[in-house]
């Protein structure tokens, strides 16, 4: 869908990280965790392209300005990294945005009997929160492994804990939780069966998780990022290599349409 959306709130959670709530049509309640939206940060031609963000949450609230009526919202959790996100950070309640959503393929939650291991860091935690919410509502057992360089990268842990998700935190510098890599903590919990991994974060982290998942033969889905122009599978700018890609037998997958969530075994990690 393409729709106009109003900023409800836009709050700085920790230095450089913002959480923004926007209004959405009721149909957006069908959005799956792992799917994403593209928004135009301004009408100006610079920045020109839309920016992609995963859903941190989708739900309804009772809106005072709508006479207490039910209003659907979506939320994103974003980090200020460049001119687009700087402009986003300056938005206030009442500002209008143009959105395309929901886009792409989301996470496949898998059977309820498995334990769900969520692995993320920084803004990679965003889609995992919405996923955790959906999984917990189904009654699944969910654990979160959150990693980052320092404590500022560990966001919204209390939100996860409020859902009843057990969380394991690690930072490179030890300023929060265990000191070390998130994958080390994850590995201690891996068993060969009855588990499924869902990961989102920087590519090196995803690669480490994918390698570990393969080693322990645990099913693993990863949410990837790429530069995007269209978000609908038309420009072919966002592709990445599938597992069987070679010069002779090319196998490119569109992150925006075939992903952003992929089975980690489907991708080439070298």
């Amino acid at each position, binding site marked *: *869908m*393409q729709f106009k959306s109003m900023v409800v709130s836009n709050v700085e959670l920790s230095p450089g990280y913002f959480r923004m709530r926007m209004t959405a049509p009721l149909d957006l309640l069908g959005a799956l965790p792992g799917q994403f939206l593209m928004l*135009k940060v301004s009408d100006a*031609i*610079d*920045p*020109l*392209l*839309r920016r992609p963000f995963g859903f941190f949450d989708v739900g309804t609230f009772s809106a005072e300005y709508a006479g207490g009526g039910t209003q659907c919202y979506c939320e994103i959790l974003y980090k200020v990294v460049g001119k687009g996100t700087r402009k986003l950070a300056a938005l206030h309640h009442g500002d209008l945005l*143009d959105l*395309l959503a929901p886009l792409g393929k989301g996470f496949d939650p898998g059977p309820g009997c498995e334990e769900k291991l969520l692995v993320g860091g920084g803004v990679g935690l965003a889609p995992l929160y919405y996923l955790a919410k959906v999984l917990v509502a189904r009654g699944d057992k969910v654990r979160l492994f959150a990693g980052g360089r320092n404590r500022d990268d560990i966001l919204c842990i209390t939100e996860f804990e409020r859902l009843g998700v057990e969380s394991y935190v690690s930072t490179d510098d030890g300023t929060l939780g265990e000191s070390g890599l998130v994958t080390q903590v994850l590995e201690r919990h891996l068993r060969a069966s009855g588990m499924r991994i869902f990961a989102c974060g920087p590519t090196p982290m995803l690669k480490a998780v994918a390698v570990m998942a393969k080693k322990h033969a645990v099913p693993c889905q990863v949410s990837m990022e*790429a*530069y*995007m*122009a*269209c978000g*609908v*599978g*038309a*420009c*072919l*700018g*966002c*592709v*990445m290599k599938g597992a069987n890609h070679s*010069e002779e037998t*090319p196998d*490119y997958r569109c992150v925006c*349409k075939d992903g952003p969530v992929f089975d980690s075994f489907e991708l080439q990690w070298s």
Partner: protein
Amino acid sequence: MQKPDMTVEVAGIKMRNPVMTASGTFGYGAEFADYLNLESIGAMITKGLSLKPKAGNPTPRIVETPGGMLNAIGLQNVGVDAFIAQKLPYLAKVDTPVIVNVYGNTLEEYGEVAARLDGLGGVAGIEVNISCPNVKQGGIVFGTDPQAAAEVVRLVRKSTSKPLIVKLSPNVTDVVSMARACADAGADALSLINTLTGMAIDLDRRRPILANVTGGLSGPAIKPVALRMVWQVAKSVQLPIIGIGGIMNGRDALEFMLAGASAVEVGTASFLDPSAAQTIAREMEQYLIDNGIASVASLIGALEV
């Protein structure tokens, strides 16, 4: 006032309005069906097709620049046979002319791709891309040398009875001599411009941002160059012209028509707004209504210099 007449005809292709979607920016049409009415635009042009499927370039393939973007997709496409089998049946059901953009690695391939499309229902015309800056063989050579371009056009002309549009590159010193060569070789119409070769650098990493190093610039940043080239070619060649380059709204499109274009193609704008082509057609019509102009065709080449 009565609704203005928005119809135009280019190389025998009748369109309900002058807005076409540019090759490579509208997928194979179906990608956009959720966002606009495909039967509200003038014509659709497919992604560039080659004889065999093509993998395209390594990534990163795109990067935003001020007022534009660079792309080096490298003509990733399903190949002409898969297009005919998998994509064309859907497009053929849409009541909007479909123009197939074709590309060859060699002279012979251009002819072969065109031949396979000849006689197919659902294909209203062929746009020959002699101007893609992002592939090593073929394209750019044909796009910058008038003799080589003429050879391609002559061969494609022999291989098809469909209306033949030749898409010109702006990466030349004299676009008019390219246009003349293609006209003399049998083109029915000319479309311009393709992307301008450009480059973006990551200062801190001391590396080019695109894996291909260079890419093609599109978007609002190229509009002045495109307008100038359309105007120059329109003055010197008798063929109908399709204007392309940085068209973002109805006013931009009408400026191209004043410069001499009979129709326009909308490219990068569809990335910012998947319904752009439809919106632009509506804005053009509104401009005509607001200004009491009865027919959009009356604006073609109406620039007063």
